[in-house]
């Protein structure tokens, strides 16, 4: 990167700001206080049709303070973590806490739960990359894709690289900080035939630049994904099995996690209220998180409350084994925190894995869905209805691309109707899963 970023110095500075905020809050009358602060710096280069299009240099910082006065709470934040700003933020949070109502559940997590085991999880791998080198990589990626026969034009290739520091501290005396990095390279291409244009993309993303896929492989894959969409038709309307690509299967896990999150449960805004210890998936399926996994995308030894993270199992042998709770939502539900303030970290499935071919063979006739559109997921009822694109499958073989159709059902029935998981695990995000074969959904097309 062209701007110098001294992560160690930034970490020291943020830790000192957090302590200043805690001291100030106490002196100004807070009974308890918590502070989150972060600094991120990055570079983004995008190219299109062989030329540089944009070069962006980013540097973001922020500080957020929550104070508790008795059982009242106030929060304030600023994009400036300078000393004067810290004071303004603390004062504003206290001013708000004078007006909010008493909440018996409010307050920090219990002191005994604060993380004491704080290992280095190896998630900080800065990339000393010049703008020219970043441009070269993006150009190489795009050119590998543009060069494929049938590609009409490029919608651009982008390289982004960033690193940062985040600190969380509270008035129990807990202070946790972590440096991290993230790098990615993506490419989007356009192909055209007599029926019109199609576009698709591919990307690679990693904490450590050495783990990124090769630039030309990303471009070629983007070209392949774009070209295979040409000639798409609409599928017939009817009930049939649906095979979800790994990126979309991880979205289904995301909907599950949303429905077992404490916030949705205490608001009764979940279709999984009161479902603890009941069967949700087939008994061969389990799902858990590994927050301490070394080098993984969402690794952290402490959660957003400062609580020690742990290997939770959310689905064990098909049954809902645990909700996903923060200190606050746990108190609201009369339960104990699961160390999930801020969400789940590094979700991993346990299931017998099958090849893509085996799953297609089991499906016989149906749709393989590779893209979903829109927000048609109702977390309160589990009702699911989304726009889709993908491939028509007949006799266990892909026949032709399909588009402009919807798939609909209910998440609960879809989870119960999970009949197979693919070995094509996507490891780019924090949720790792292969394809999911769901026995039956309503497909609406032509």
């Amino acid at each position: 990167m062209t701007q110098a970023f001294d992560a160690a110095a930034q970490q020291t500075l943020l830790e000192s700001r957090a302590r200043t905020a805690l001291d100030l809050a106490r002196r100004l009358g807070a009974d308890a206080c918590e502070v989150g602060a972060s600094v991120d710096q990055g570079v983004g280069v995008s190219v299109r049709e062989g030329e540089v299009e944009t070069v962006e240099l980013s540097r973001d910082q922020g500080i957020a303070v929550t104070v508790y006065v008795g059982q009242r709470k106030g929060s304030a934040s600023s994009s400036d973590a300078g000393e004067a700003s810290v004071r303004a933020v603390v004062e504003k949070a206290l001013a708000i806490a004078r007006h909010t109502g008493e909440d018996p559940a409010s307050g920090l997590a219990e002191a005994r739960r604060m993380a004491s085991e704080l290992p280095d999880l190896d998630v900080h791998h800065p990339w000393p990359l010049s703008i020219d080198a970043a441009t070269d990589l993006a150009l190489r990626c795009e050119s590998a894709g543009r060069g494929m026969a049938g590609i009409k034009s490029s919608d651009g290739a982008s390289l982004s690289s960033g690193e940062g520091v985040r600190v969380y501290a509270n008035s129990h005396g807990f202070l946790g900080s972590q440096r991290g990095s993230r790098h990615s390279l993506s490419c989007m291409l356009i192909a055209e035939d007599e029926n019109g244009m199609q576009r698709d993309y591919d990307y690679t993303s990693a904490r450590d630049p050495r783990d990124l896929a090769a630039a030309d492989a990303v471009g070629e894959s983007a070209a392949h994904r774009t070209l295979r969409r040409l000639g798409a038709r609409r599928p017939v309307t009817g009930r049939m099995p649906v095979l979800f690509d790994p990126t979309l299967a991880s979205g289904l896990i995301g909907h599950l996690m949303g429905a077992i999150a404490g916030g949705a449960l205490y608001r009764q805004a979940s279709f999984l209220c009161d479902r603890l210890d009941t069967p949700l998936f087939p008994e061969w399926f389990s799902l858990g998180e590994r927050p301490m996994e070394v080098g993984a995308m969402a690794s952290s030894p402490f959660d957003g409350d400062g609580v020690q993270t742990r290997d939770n199992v959310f689905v064990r042998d098909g049954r809902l084994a645990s909700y996903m709770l923060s200190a606050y939502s746990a108190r609201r539900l009369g339960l104990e925190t699961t160390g999930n303030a801020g969400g789940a970290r590094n979700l991993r499935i346990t299931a017998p894995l099958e090849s893509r071919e085996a799953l297609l063979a089991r499906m016989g006739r149906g749709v393989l869905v590779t893209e979903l559109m829109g927000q048609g997921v109702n977390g309160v009822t589990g009702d699911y209805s989304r726009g889709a694109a993908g491939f028509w499958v007949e006799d266990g073989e892909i026949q032709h691309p399909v588009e402009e159709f919807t798939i609909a059902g209910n998440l609960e029935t879809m989870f119960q109707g999970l009949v197979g998981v693919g070995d094509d695990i996507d490891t780019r995000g924090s949720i790792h899963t292969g394809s999911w074969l769901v026995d039956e959904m309503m497909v609406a097309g032509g």
Partner: protein
Amino acid sequence: MTSQTHAMLDEASAVLLTPGGLDLAALDDGLGHAMGPGIDYADLYFQRSWHEGWVLEDGEVKEASYNIDGGVGVRALAGEKTGFAYSNQITVDALAETGRTAAGIVRRGERRAAAPGVAMASQARYAGVDPLTGLSAEDKIAMLKLADRVARAADPSVAQVSASLTGVHEVVLVRASDGTLAADIRPLVRFNVSVIAVRNGRRERGSAGGGGRYAMVRLRDENVAERYAKEAVRQALVNLEAVAAPAGQMPVVLGPGWPGILLHEAVGHGLEGDFNRKGSSAFAGRIGQRVASRGVTVVDDATLDDRRGSLSVDDEGTPGQSTTLIEDGILTGYMQDKLNARLMGMAPTGNARRESFAHLPMPRMTNTYMRAGNDDPADILKSVRRGIYAVSFGGGQVDITSGKFVFSASEAYLIEDGKITAPVKGATLIGNGPEAMGRVSMIGHDMELDTGIGVCGKEGQGVPVGVGQPTLKLDELTVGGTQS
């Protein structure tokens, strides 16, 4: 230059520049850094915003938050290339550093001078007020508690009520090398109610909300707490009775107002200048061609008073305007920012928008709506033998290249033999933009704008927008229900 424009510049300058020891004259030096060798245009965008949010749950306002954000974004253009850097400090040093960084996109070429700044007169589309003042904290809490009481009293099945009141006070100032000097003070407020109703073990949500570019006190004067609470409960109760939605192609009647999200997705995004310059939109190169049925006229209008999507000036300092995108079914115009307008040989249309100083501007919609037609809404419903009548939606999405778009109904009904019969569960509707617009067969005389709740996302940047339309009939659209 009007005295109003002058006063706006003075106020913005006092808020944005004075604290860091700068003034309007000092911006010439700032621009000089960004106008490096080979740079043909540069702009400085100063912004400061104050965001306040109050949330009620379980009958009590347990949570409130306040956020202060601000800084300067510096952009340098050379042909199709853009260099961009920003800082949350507004000082001489920060301007020099970000300016030089942005200009680093090219290193050779002629060094051009910035034109002297001239304040352009623009008409204010909303009052430049701080919307957060005028109501005390107690007043704000009282509004939220009123919504809670009204919702709970409306029906015994109401199990949960949450309500929120948010406001943003934003001050921006733009100085560009083409001589642009403009400032804007943009208030934005919103009140929202969401309820969960439970009956016979079935659970459903209903929600309602709205707002615009005015002070919070107007929300109280218009009694939105009571109105939106009742509306949210009504919607939840309708959904408690909803049966499975049908699946397949059928006629769809869209209610007036917020269902105009159809236009936003099906045509709006596809008519943004950047996608058309790059040729990636299904509408590229089609100006002058028929892209919708006769009678379909769609405009993007930033000049509506006090609306959520309105802009007195856009984020490049161009005055907000009304642009006709489709006139009687013929494609007549694109929405442009300066970069794409220049590269396409067109004029900017006041559609340059950015989420904040830390984001690059792009061509974006403001308030996008279809003008009224001549049909009676009752006749439109009567004309459908079997179809869907959708009156409220969650959100939508479009693939501008293939033209495929979706939008998801959150309140809809079955039409049988010209009559509304039963409410149906939410379902996603999918179509192809140009095809769907060609299937508009009836247009109501009841044009309405939405209540002020839209957020549009593009390349990771969110901006407030408005939509609107009269009751519309599309002869055929795919409905993503579960019932064959």
